[in-house]
């Protein structure tokens, strides 16, 4: 119910905000900042750093708002900006080290099933515990829906490295879930 009028106002808000209308900018910020902070937080463990990155992402978004053509989804556009901003932050902090590991032959997807739905906080905890390289590839692939080729381009790695990173990330997550399950069973 709420989304429809908001969508209608997007284009108007975008036009006004692109002209430097502070109120329109604030409205856009209010609309998207919680989601975008969530996006940034996926890649960055530190909450303050995530906010900082989101801020610079919004700043870039507003200064380039004139470049936005109403072709794709506006949210998708902002999201990409946030992802890029987060990755450049990780790169700046020299956290993205991709050691070309021995190729894993069977990278086929093995879906991990869980008995109980994981909550946000648990998921974040698991994600945060992943090494930055694994984590980044995993989120880009599993959450953002990027292909390995796109991830390779974005992170300046080759596709296979992306695949192995994903594989390893999955393995780790599976282990984590198993551990959690064991723990929870243990407590019962």
């Amino acid at each position, binding site marked *: 119910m709420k989304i429809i009028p908001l969508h209608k106002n997007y284009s108007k808000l975008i036009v006004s905000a692109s002209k430097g209308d502070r109120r329109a900018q604030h409205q856009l*910020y209010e609309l998207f900042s919680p989601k975008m902070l969530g996006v940034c937080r996926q890649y960055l463990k530190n909450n303050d750093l995530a906010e900082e990155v989101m801020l610079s992402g919004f700043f870039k978004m507003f200064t380039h708002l004139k470049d936005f053509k109403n072709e794709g989804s506006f949210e998708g556009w902002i999201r990409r900006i946030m992802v890029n901003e987060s990755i450049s932050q990780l790169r700046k902090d020299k956290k993205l080290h991709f050691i070309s590991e021995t190729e894993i032959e069977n990278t086929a997807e093995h879906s991990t099933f869980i008995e109980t739905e994981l909550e946000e906080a648990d998921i974040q905890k698991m994600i945060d515990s992943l090494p930055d390289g694994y984590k980044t590839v995993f989120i880009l692939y599993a959450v953002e829906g990027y292909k390995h080729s796109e991830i390779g381009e974005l992170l300046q790695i080759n596709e296979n490295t992306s695949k192995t990173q994903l594989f390893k990330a999955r393995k780790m997550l599976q282990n984590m879930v198993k551990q959690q399950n064991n723990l929870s069973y243990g407590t019962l």
Partner: protein
Amino acid sequence: MAPYKLEDNIREKLEARELKPSAEVWKKLEAKLDAEQPKKKTLLWYYVAASFVGFIILASIFYNQDNLKINDQIVNETIEQPKVEDNPEIVPQTINKVEIASEEKKNDKNTSEKQQENKQMPRSNKSQLLPQPIGTKKSAVEEKIEKTDAIAEQTEAKQPINFEKPVPSEEDRIFNAKVDEVVASVKKLQENNTEVTAAEVEALLNSAHRDIQTQRILSSPKVDAAALLEDVEWELEKSFRDKVFEALGEGFQKVRTAVTERND
């Protein structure tokens, strides 16, 4: 309980997740945007200021051009105005001279009858006239004087009529005085030399005219550029005056020959 796919679970949860950023973030962002926009604003102001300065420069140039044009106009006017003022002076003068000339021509007509009678007489009988007795010559000279007097009187008599429209000024007075002077000098010459050539009369008239011109320039309260210019122009273009004076001289010659021949 149906098993959940771990990755789907993660995606769903993370995509839907919303984290409320602290209020400071917007303030910082606003400050950053403010810091960005004043740059553009100041740049805009620079453009405005630059264009304003440019406009002022252009305006001053145009204004100066206008001023120059106005100055030109003033100069033109100062040239034209004296001409308008001078014209009534010049016109009566020329009319006067024309009158003199026509007077002469009338004289010509009077004398031409006599001349026709003495057609066989060559014009160069001047030299023949020279050895003639002084007594008869004197009478001839007296005749001449009478004639010139008559001309002078006629011109003098004509002058008031000519100057009826323009109020006679000091310049006219000077002019009249000069005419009298010329006539007197002609008389003197005739008395002394017994022979007055047309060239001599012409020279006298020319010098008299020059005197009048210079006196006009001098008598005017301020140095009139237009009058000076006119003076120079007069020097350059004598054609009309020359014609008048030539006519005067010729007429005088004819009168003289007629008189001498009648005496003969």
